[in-house]
């Protein structure tokens, strides 16, 4: 499968490879430049593994100054740069290209400041998402956005993709929890945007950096909001006879003005996969499952649960199962959060990420099933239902090119369906290369031209992550 194109490598860059490598070795401390082809292999792709490209070199700077020096050099000589965190992108956002220097933030992984009075943490971009919550948990705080990949993915990558997670229904995604960044622009200029204050003056540049997919600059530090951990939290399982009923129940819960911390959805194939992996005690005799997490004091959780159970009752809920212990609760989440990994053990898959208005959930679930069936493939649905962010995992055999092409085609059809019902192509995984060529389905030429003009205001020569997000044809000269 290799249908998504990359930009033609710049021969002017490829032909100078040796000089560039030598210059970068000089710019960086020892051990901070990877350039042996064999050692470059781990960087050739991300979690969108169907595509891979060996980069020219990989810089692993230890300081903001070093990031700036590398960018300044690459800018001067017209060398493309691909920023990289942990490389867990599902949309190919971190896949390099032959003429690019990858700038990896893995060595910048220190927590710089934890400030409980102001409820902020300032961390280097290579710190993992989970490390922030772990660093503050003993004091009763957490960092809210929790991508399932949180053990590995970095805050820099989270900012790059404006990542979400199961608990974002109540607390918002990365952009709602980000207060400031240190950013290196493509020419090496270092900017401090925002800080510990809730609002920054001037244009909201931070707002567009978040979700910028590595095209606007490299984030080296971030200041994020911490939240006091609730007194208690409890996931509850609701089993239904059909996906449509479960979807309709989600829409009704939200419409009733009830906003739990999380509402996650799994259909039968997903339940089977996750149960086999985590032994979480998911009910096996249902077609669809909701994991609803409520939090607060015992009384609050009871009150909210009672309202949700009443609504679920109107949708013919078959099983309601409360977790009885912290261990059980942890298993329920372990099963959910390892859904992608567990699926990967039984088949190759691609994961879609469209978001739809809640009222459309049942129809889109039906549509998804029809599309996948039409291609003769299988699908497992496991996703953030409370905010309409769907993740159909399309299962296929990567060794069979025809199968792979079918999976990609089915995925594209599903995403178009999401857009057509009033949703969008991607809710949290980003456009990367994966959805790049579908952008015209969601946006007009004027819409895209405006976005590209803003991109060019940050990076006039399109050196930063240049093969991503915007269709290759129709770009400004």
């Amino acid at each position, binding site marked *: 499968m290799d249908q998504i194109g990359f930009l033609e490598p710049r021969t002017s860059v490829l032909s100078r490879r040796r000089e560039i490598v030598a210059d970068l070795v000089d710019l960086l401390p020892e051990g901070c430049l990877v350039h042996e082809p064999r050692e470059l292999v781990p960087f050739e792709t991300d979690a969108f593994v169907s595509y891979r490209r060996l980069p020219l070199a990989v810089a692993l700077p230890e300081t903001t100054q070093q990031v700036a020096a590398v960018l300044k050099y690459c800018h001067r000589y017209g060398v493309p740069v691909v920023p990289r965190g942990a490389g867990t992108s599902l949309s190919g956002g971190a896949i390099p290209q032959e003429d690019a220097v990858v700038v990896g933030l893995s060595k910048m992984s220190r927590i710089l400041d934890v400030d409980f009075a102001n409820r902020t943490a300032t961390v280097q971009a290579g710190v993992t998402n989970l490390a922030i919550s772990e660093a503050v948990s003993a004091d009763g705080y957490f960092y809210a956005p929790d991508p399932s990949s949180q053990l590995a993915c970095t805050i820099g990558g989270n900012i790059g993709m404006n990542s979400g997670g199961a608990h974002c229904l109540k607390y918002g995604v990365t952009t709602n929890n980000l207060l400031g960044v240190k950013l290196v622009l493509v020419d090496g200029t270092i900017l401090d945007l925002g800080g510990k204050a809730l609002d920054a003056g001037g244009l*909201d540049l931070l707002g567009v950096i978040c979700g910028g997919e590595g095209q606007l600059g490299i984030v080296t530090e971030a200041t994020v909001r911490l939240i006091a951990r609730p007194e208690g939290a409890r996931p509850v399982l609701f089993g239904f006879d059909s996906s449509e009923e479960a979807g309709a129940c989600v829409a009704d819960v939200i419409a009733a003005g009830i906003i739990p911390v999380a509402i996650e959805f799994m259909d039968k194939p997903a339940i089977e996969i996750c149960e086999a992996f985590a032994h979480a005690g998911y009910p096996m005799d249902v077609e669809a499952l909701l994991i609803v997490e409520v939090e607060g004091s015992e009384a609050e959780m009871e009150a909210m649960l009672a309202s949700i159970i009443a609504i679920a009752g109107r949708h013919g809920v078959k099983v309601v199962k409360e977790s009885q212990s912290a261990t059980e609760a942890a298993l329920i989440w372990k099963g959910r959060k390892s859904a992608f990994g567990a699926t990967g053990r039984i088949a190759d898959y691609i994961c879609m990420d469209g978001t739809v208005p809640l009222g459309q959930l049942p129809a889109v679930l039906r549509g998804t099933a029809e599309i996948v069936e039409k291609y003769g493939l299988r699908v497992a649905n496991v996703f953030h239902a409370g905010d309409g962010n769907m993740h159909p995992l399309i299962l296929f055999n990567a060794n069979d090119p025809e199968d792979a092409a079918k999976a990609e085609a089915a995925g594209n059809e599903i995403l178009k369906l999401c857009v057509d019902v009033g949703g969008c192509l991607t809710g949290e995984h980003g456009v990367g290369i994966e959805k790049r060529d579908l952008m015209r389905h969601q946006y007009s030429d004027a819409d895209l031209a405006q976005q590209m003009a803003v991109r060019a205001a940050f990076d006039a020569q399109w050196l930063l992550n240049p093969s991503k997000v915007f269709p290759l044809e129709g770009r400004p000269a």
Partner: protein
Amino acid sequence: MTPIHEPLSEDAASRLVQVASLSKSPFVIRGGGTRSLHGTPDGADVLSARGLNGIVAYNPAEMTMTARAGTPLEVVEAALAEKRQMLAFEPNDLRGVLGSSGIPTIGGVFATNASGPRRLTAGAARDSLLGVRFVNGKGEIVKAGGRVMKNVTGLDLVKLLAGSHGSLALLTEVTFRLLPVPETSATIVVSDLNDAEAAAAMATAMSLPVEVSGAAHLPESVRGRFIGGALPPGAATVLRLEGLSASVTVRSEKLVSAMGRFGAVSRLEAEGTKRLWREIRDAAPYADGTPRPLWRVSVAPIAGQQLVAALRLETGVDAFYDWQGGLVWLRMESDPEAALLRRYVKAVGGGHATLLRARPEVLAATQAFQPQTEAILALQSRVKASFDPSGLFKSPMLGWEG
């Protein structure tokens, strides 16, 4: 009189801007024109959004609304109230303090990112804004974002337009998310703390799992001007709880017991709570009919009172605090003292200060918006040019220039 253009449709607005871009005739964008401040630079016409009026779609079940930018805020809020929903970020009504009339528009609210007390926990206007349509400086009609809560498809232009103060484009339509109106609310009042003690008390309150949705400190100089003087004597540190009644009762007991060690604690019920937080939102004590300089300063929560303490040593100021201390409403006795204030904002760790009110001649001579570093200014003007290459839209935020 400055000529006013009031297109009645997005298409008409687009044609108007296209024509103006050829002759390079500048505009100042206006919503309800509740701004009495900053005036209009010479030679610029007013481009009003008021003709773009009406709610386009309201979907209570999905908790989203789409409205044309010129729709009066009160029309939006009335429609929401019918379904017991609300804007989470509590937009301010600053007509009182600005001494201005006019009808605030929903577009103006997002264009100024106007956010009240709940900003502390529920986010600012920008966090509620899901999608926009706008006319850029070339007269092109552009859309960004959409109507779903989670959307990372392409660059987030929505955030850039929120708080852009008319500097990038004319917003024609906005789509935003809503929240249910809480069943009830209550305020825990801790009395007679000084500013530093209050900062500590508020930080403690925010560290508890009781979901405080508003934390303000009203020093003795302003306390009597809230809710008709009904707060207990001495400074009032106020903490708001909202939600289901059963839950508010439980949380309020916990909060009361935790606050006891800071000072005398009392409780304000739902009606008083509503009025109090509306008055905090609108900086009511400074709706004093005077043109005395009024600043809105945003710093780290703990730094708010440090800033005011430092200023007090050098000049006459009156202040109260929202956002756990991080939003300072600051009224100067006479001179705005911009240089002094900005020096101290920097000294306490940075943030920004906006001059909302002063005598016209003072306003004209003061940089009302926070000055930015050279590097950020350069980037801002490139971003401005990407929306408005010929510098058609004049805004005080970018210093009126192109």
